[in-house]
């Protein structure tokens, strides 16, 4: 693959395994993708598919009982490439990237902020370690950031504690914290799952503005296909530790080529299609991560299953940007086009 000029971070054949309870869970089992400058990559999948683990792996924020087994995570910084997977977990080099080059926001703004410190203090912590600002400038900058994020009365709000913020405001404060050092990449791990739709709309609008104004590359993790359709430039669909299908949002949503993607899209009601829309449930449930099928992880629930599916399908490039992991992708794709 030729390296695009505008790729901010590339992940190749990444495997992250968890070792809790003396078992080995292959949470992320060989995923590859690029995050491009000024674009949004959505990683979509159900709970337990490994999407959040992928995000934590990039930030090296994994729990103790887990490790990167294989693969490369390369951050293309202005001063050359950095292999994140080879850095020490909480070493100096990794810390200098976290927060300043790559920032992250989390799913639940209620628990992601430390309850005993003011919002201003928590924002200034980032500034302290990644900028040359002086102590007095921290507060001005924090107020500025909060104002940018659309928090009213930032001058007084900056000295408030998280519990006096509403959920939406906390997520804004989280974004302010993440954006404080103008990172090149923003990883958002289900940033609106805990929020209401009207607040979700506010947060997405804010993220869209940031992407346009700062050229930030965004990796957005979500389980909601609607969010993908509205925000993504590119999509990667994950199932049980693999990216089963990836491509631009047009390719994946208009012409889904993996049976899982197709089934997923067919199983969700779409607003505005009325009461008589056709909905097909996916049979069965996701397999036990400790008792996975040998081959294709989706095989047991798949309408297209054949004997070949007992072997893990290879990743096939079916367009310049569109790739899929399925033995029968041609037939699936043909059906979709009908």
């Amino acid at each position: 693959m030729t390296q695009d000029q505008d790729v901010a971070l590339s992940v190749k054949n990444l495997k992250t395994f968890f070792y809790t309870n003396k078992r080995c869970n292959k949470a992320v089992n060989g995923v590859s993708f690029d995050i491009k400058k000024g674009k949004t990559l959505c990683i979509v999948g159900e709970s337990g598919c490994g999407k959040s683990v992928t995000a934590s792996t990039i930030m090296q924020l994994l729990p103790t009982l887990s490790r990167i087994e294989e693969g490369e995570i390369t951050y293309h910084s202005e001063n050359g490439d950095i292999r994140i997977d080879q850095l020490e977990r909480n070493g100096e080099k990794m810390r200098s990237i976290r927060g300043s080059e790559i920032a992250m926001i989390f799913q639940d703004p209620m628990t992601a902020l430390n309850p005993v410190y003011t919002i201003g203090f928590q924002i200034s912590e980032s500034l302290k370690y990644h900028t040359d600002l002086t102590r007095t400038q921290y507060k001005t900058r924090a107020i500025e950031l909060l104002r940018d994020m659309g928090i009213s009365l930032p001058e007084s709000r900056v000295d408030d504690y998280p519990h006096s913020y509403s959920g939406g405001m906390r997520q804004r404060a989280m974004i302010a914290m993440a954006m404080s050092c103008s990172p090149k990449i923003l990883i958002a791990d289900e940033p609106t799952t805990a929020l209401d739709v009207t607040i979700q709309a506010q947060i997405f609008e804010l993220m869209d503005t940031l992407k346009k104004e700062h050229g930030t590359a965004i990796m957005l993790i979500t389980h909601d296909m609607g969010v993908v359709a509205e925000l993504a430039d590119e999509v990667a669909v994950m199932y049980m530790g693999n990216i089963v299908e990836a491509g631009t949002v047009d390719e994946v949503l208009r012409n889904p080529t993996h049976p899982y993607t197709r089934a997923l899209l067919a199983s969700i009601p779409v607003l505005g299609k009325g009461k008589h829309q056709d909905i097909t449930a996916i049979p069965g449930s996701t397999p036990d991560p400790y008792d996975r099928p040998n081959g294709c992880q989706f095989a047991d629930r798949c309408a297209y299953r054949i004997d070949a599916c007992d072997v893990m399908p290879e990743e096939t490039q079916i367009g310049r940007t569109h790739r899929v992991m399925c033995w029968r992708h041609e037939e699936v794709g043909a059906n979709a086009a009908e």
Partner: protein
Amino acid sequence: MLTYVIRRILILIPMALIISFLVYLGLELTPGDAVSHMISPEMMASISAERLDALRVSLGLEQPFIVRYWIWLQGMLQGNFGYSTAGGVAIHAILADRLPATLELSAVALVFSTIFGCVLGVISALKRGSTTDNVLTVTGMLGVSIPEFFFGLVAILIFALKLQWLPVGGRLLPGYDSYWDHLPHVIMPALVLSIMMTAGVMRYARSSMLDALSKEYIKTARSKGLPEWRVNLLHGFRVALTPVIVLIGFRLPVLIGGSVIIEQVFQWPGVGSEFISAVRSQDYPLVMMIALLSVMAVLTASLLVDILTALIDPRVRLDK
């Protein structure tokens, strides 16, 4: 914050009243002439039976129970704690004599165990699963399992009787009263008491710290690129501190209990050993007063703990 403190105090007052009432009830039910609790024995010996009756009336003792309680309570608030039946000494004099010794012992143990307990607990939590952690955990377990007096006995045997480095017990020999003279006396009881307490604080600090470290905001702090010491101490320990302080407040009764026995083992002339001799000689007024005093100490400590936690944890402070 002010509302919070006032609220805490207002909760405390009825508690203190109920407990003092119970203590008075106990006093009334135990054998002994009520007058003898209230006037000095010399006076008692020197007056006639008629005068005694007159005195009863003037002290209000023929009045209903609740009024007697009220009179007694007023006396208490003015520092009139009554008289010991055994020695006939005024209780406030006994307390004035014994309290400093107990406070000295408890203060040393409290400070020592808080600092060392927290430090060791945090180290143990940060190195979870390592050899250091395992050694500290088992040591802590031993610390809370060995009876304190047994620990004290072994210490006396080794350091006082065999090695003869330190005195067996007591606080001050007559004639020696500079601070340095009594330092050797305080070392053993204070250390024995502290080590018991330290083990408890350490175990608690460890689990509280582990709890704090598993929180989501620790991940947030790391994601900002903060150095580990800052993540662990400013984000982890600061939050873990609240339950530890609450625990130390709760452990005050344990400290008082421990000091009662330790004072006895080391013949330390504090309130605790006085209490035991009062129980042995069934000196009810003294027993009751010391019990009341210890409850008041616990209540005051719990108030202080509440205020302290409110100061370090904005959630507590701003909640109400």
